[in-house]
């Protein structure tokens, strides 16, 4: 397992109060700005070398937007993200290009993220067209074959096209492409959610092996709580663009204090029929509120059974109020008997 954060006080990546709003406009010629979708609204976390930070949450909570904004695939609205002390959002074009070599991404959908008209070899070698000093031209084919072999594919498949592979194999191609530039950080945006269970386990094993081998740090984004638990050292739970609780794997899964985390954990169907009757389940009422018009005060109060007047007036900060050992954005944070 990757080393815990105590030995390395210097984080590789520090995200501070990241904000990404998407404007809502009206009109075709004269576009009036009538509101914002607050996809990410003040997210802070750190990533240490060799560590995996998991981000979980339901669809629409902003976890993928965090990933895309960190790579500047979306332009940020506010906040800062420091990679080794350098603010990513302040970099110019050529500096940013250099930085992307160190931060790579694996996308969710292995069908949409590989160009169907490029061969596997072209896909894996394409990063070297831009960063030509990484691998000299005459060694590229051999290096690509090594990469394919490393991710568990036949190195002779270099000339095949993506449609000739299954979902799991395609995701391996995506992994090989992300490894091509020897990055330090890989952002995994739902890398296994499109895969069947038996294949999902293969890809997760591969990611863990590679982490040890190349000393990679992962930001692992997924909605499947058990997958995130398995792979992460620390986990942040997101709701409506904010992290509402963050802690190490044990603190989140065994000692969760935020009502939303507890509800989320208790809603996960467990593959164990003997727990069917004994489990204390919390079924949340209603749906996620719209991120363009989030509730006042605490975002979660509209679905929360603990909500009081104070929750509507004041926004709870993400701090450790009662000495639980990890921060939780709830005025009434308390532990609850095991729900998972």
């Amino acid at each position, binding site marked *: *397992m990757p080393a815990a954060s105590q030995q390395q006080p210097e984080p590789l990546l520090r995200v501070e109060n990241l904000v990404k709003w998407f404007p809502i406009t009206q009109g075709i010629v004269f576009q009036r700005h009538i509101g914002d979708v607050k996809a990410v609204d003040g997210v802070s976390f750190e990533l240490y070398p060799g560590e995996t930070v998991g981000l979980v949450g*339901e*669809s629409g909570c902003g976890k993928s937007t965090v990933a895309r904004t960190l790579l500047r695939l979306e332009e940020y609205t506010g906040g800062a993200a420091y990679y080794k002390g350098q603010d990513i959002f302040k970099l110019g074009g050529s500096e940013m290009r250099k930085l992307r070599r160190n931060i790579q991404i694996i996308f969710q959908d292995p069908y949409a993220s590989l160009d169907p008209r490029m061969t596997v070899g072209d896909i894996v070698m394409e990063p070297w067209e831009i960063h030509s000093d990484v691998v000299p031209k005459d060694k590229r084919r051999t290096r690509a074959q090594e990469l394919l072999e490393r991710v568990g594919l036949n190195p002779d498949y270099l000339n095949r096209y993506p449609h000739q592979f*299954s979902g*799991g*194999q395609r995701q391996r191609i995506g992994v090989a492409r992300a490894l091509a530039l020897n990055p330090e950080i890989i952002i995994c945006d739902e890398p296994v959610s499109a895969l*069947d*269970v*038996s*294949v*999902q*386990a*293969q890809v*997760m*094993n591969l990611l*863990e*092996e590679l982490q040890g081998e190349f000393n990679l740090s992962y930001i692992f984004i997924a*909605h499947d*709580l*058990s*997958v995130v*638990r*398995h*792979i992460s050292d620390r986990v942040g739970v997101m709701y409506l663009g904010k992290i509402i609780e963050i802690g190490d*794997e044990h603190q989140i*899964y065994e000692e969760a204090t935020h009502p939303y985390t507890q*509800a*989320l954990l*208790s*809603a*996960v*169907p*467990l*593959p*164990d*029929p*003997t*727990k*069917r009757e004994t489990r204390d*389940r919390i*079924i*949340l009422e*209603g*749906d*996620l509120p719209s991120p363009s018009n989030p509730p006042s005060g605490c975002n979660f109060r509209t679905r929360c059974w603990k909500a009081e007047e104070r929750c509507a007036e004041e926004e709870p900060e993400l701090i450790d109020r009662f000495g639980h050992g990890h921060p939780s954005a709830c005025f009434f944070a308390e532990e609850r008997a095991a729900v*998972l």
Partner: protein
Amino acid sequence: MSQGKQEWEQSLDEEVGFDPTADHLLDVRDLHVEFPTDYGVVNAVNGLSYTLDRGETLAILGESGSGKSVSALAVMGIIEKPGRIPKGEVLLHGLDLLKTPSRQLRDIRGERIAMIFQDALTALNPVYSVGWQIAEMYRRHRGTDKKTAYKYAADLMDRVRIPNARNRVNDYPHQFSGGMRQRVMIAMALSLDPEVLIADEPTTALDVTVQAQIMNLLSELQDETGMGLILITHDLGVVAEVCDEVNVMYAGRVMERAPIRRLYAEPAHPYTLGLLHSIPRADRKGQPLDPIPGQPPNLANIPSGCEFHPRCAFAEDICSTDAPPLYDVDGQRQSACHFWEEVLRARSQPTAT
């Protein structure tokens, strides 16, 4: 309304000739489904058999391409050409639906057997209001006027716990959230009080908190109506939460059939064992997962003998030549593996670390 239902049912019974003495509500026997393609015949379902009784919840568990959805379409009689059913029987109250003329089948479908699809947004028509879509089936089958049908639609939406149903009857599918759309689908399926409900991955597209709401709703409705529920899913967690009996499918065939607790406690087929080992578990954090090697087979070119043998740790020579029948394990469950006894022993040993 219940009185009208009884009259309707009686007249239908006489018309189509259901056998009131039939052993099971639904009895599927040796079902085969195939699709001819340019690359050869794809054998999606190869000899599926199961029975379903009133109030029972049966799971059909399998990964993509195992034939679980296609088998449901075949039971509903909605396999589209060029797909065909070369062999098999689907007995509802003893009546073979595969031999029933399509006009008669239209009366049975919805009335006796209904289905919920995975993706509610594509299954609903975007240009009609949800009230119209729910009411349509009621109008067609019961011949009521528009006003009564709309009122009934609102009642149904209330029953599936859509808040403020009366004001939302005239809303369109895009105005509903994913969970609410799935409730609309359930309302449609329940509009004629079917005896059998087939739910094809009803919660796969939904978030966990909403998934829990929908699964709760389905089991409450089942308690109310006593219908038989067939749940088609790939999710071992969902199955463990709600089902009584499980059929594990692989490459179009049942690998193992067992009561729910036995299946999870001591699987008798290597594929089931592999699936259970593939799920991340809290007590095994920090250790690599134990996945099934290889890929699921191409259905146009299914391996000889046992379909699973190229990926199986227990495989021996006989597995590549002789397809195992469903061996009886202990009277309650069956396993399609020549070496099921060894699989049982492997499970009872402490899992490898």
